[in-house]
């Protein structure tokens, strides 16, 4: 009976070794790992998809329709309604976040190649805390930088609520500040947790399919194990659909939150 190792799928190993980079007395290993390889593959998928969607035909084909639907999801559903017309410059940023998270999320479900050439190619980069934390910090820092460029020291208004008594302002300011600075944590943990949890549950049920099936083959009363195996298989199929929904939804949620955070600093004090 194979051991059930639901965490095995998140293991990282080196594919192409690169010499370590020395920085401040520390050696940093920047080798191409399976995680990095799948990120590069995601970039390739994004470029191929959006590249073939960039034909600019008046009557769009299938790929162009898909690309334009994704674009419209960001432009027409998020950026323009939330930020307004001065949100146009931020569309590339939000669209980049959305497409990267979307494709990386889908890698564990749609772009799963299984075990080829002694390597597991079913790997979800967004189930790596390093990746989600980097993206969350990147989003947070971008919002901060854009805020300071746009408002200068007027950024303090973000933590100094208007339209309430002075006493309440002193109570609200620390709360606003905490809720602002906790954003990188919530952004990274939300995406990481969603991807991790779904994949672990799927892996466990998939293991049950094989394990209970093997038990069932031993004959006698244990034949009932085949029933459990079939039920687990049905569960895996249902979870696959659920994971597809979660993968798309989390990408949208990440992009939506990034847009909301951008809106706060772009339209600061405009009561938008």
């Amino acid at each position, binding site marked *: 009976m194979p051991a059930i190792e639901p965490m095995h799928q*998140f*293991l990282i190993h080196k594919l192409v070794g690169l010499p370590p980079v020395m920085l401040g007395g520390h050696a940093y290993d*920047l080798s191409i790992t399976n995680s990095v390889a799948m990120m590069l593959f995601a970039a390739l998928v994004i470029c191929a998809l959006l*590249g073939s969607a960039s034909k600019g035909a008046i009557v769009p084909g299938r790929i162009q329709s898909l690309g334009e639907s994704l674009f419209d999801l960001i432009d027409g559903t998020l950026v323009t309604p939330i930020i307004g017309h001065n949100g146009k410059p931020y569309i*590339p*940023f939000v669209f980049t976040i959305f497409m990267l998270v979307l494709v990386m999320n889908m890698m564990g479900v749609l772009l799963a190649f299984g075990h080829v050439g002694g390597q597991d190619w079913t790997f979800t*980069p967004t189930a790596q805390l390093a990746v989600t934390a*980097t993206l969350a910090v990147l989003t947070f820092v971008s919002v901060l930088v854009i805020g300071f460029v746009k408002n200068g020291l007027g950024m303090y208004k973000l933590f100094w609520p208007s339209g309430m008594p002075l006493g309440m302002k002193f109570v609200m300011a620390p709360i606003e500040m905490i809720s602002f600075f906790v954003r990188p944590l919530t952004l990274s943990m939300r995406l990481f947790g969603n991807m991790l949890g779904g994949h672990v549950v799927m892996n466990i049920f998939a293991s049950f399919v094989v394990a209970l099936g093997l038990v069932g083959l031993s004959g006698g009363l244990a034949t009932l194990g085949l029933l459990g195996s079939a039920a687990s298989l049905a569960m895996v199929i249902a979870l696959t659909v659920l994971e597809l929904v979660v993968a798309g939804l989390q990408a949208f949620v990440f992009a939506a939150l990034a847009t909301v955070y951008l809106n706060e600093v772009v339209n600061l004090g405009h009561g938008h």
Partner: protein
Amino acid sequence: MATPTHEGTAPASTGGLPQFDPQWWPGQIFWFLVIFLFIYVMMKVFFVPKIGGAIEARDAKIDGDIAQARKLKDEADAQAAAALADMAKARAASQKLASDARAAAQADVAAKLAVEEEKLNVSTQAAEQRIRAARDSAMGNVKTIAADTAGVIVAKLTGQAASKGEIDAALAGRA
């Protein structure tokens, strides 16, 4: 537990989430930032202008086509109205022409009728005159015949001829 086939798998398998293994963080962070920057630049200079431009061009084309269709429809409506007005004018003209022709024909007929009536009247009066003259002369003849006859009858009865004056006096009392 799986045997470590690649370097790096061993520490992760000893427990805890492999994601918390700090050994692989720098590489993932570095490459993710590189990939993010690359995709962002591609979005900024190529994908977003191209796809957004295509959507805008399509919207503009649809708006333009609808505006032109509306313009053409207005033109067609105007032409239809003009055609309708022309038709009404033509109908009025033809009606006027028909009624004029009818009136002219009626006037012509009336004039000819009047001429013919006039002619008829003239010939009728002439005929009446002739008839009257013929009757008068006939009546004159009758008196002469009566006088002659009366003279003959008187002569036969009385054996002597009556004088012309006596006969005339007798006839005048009869006529």
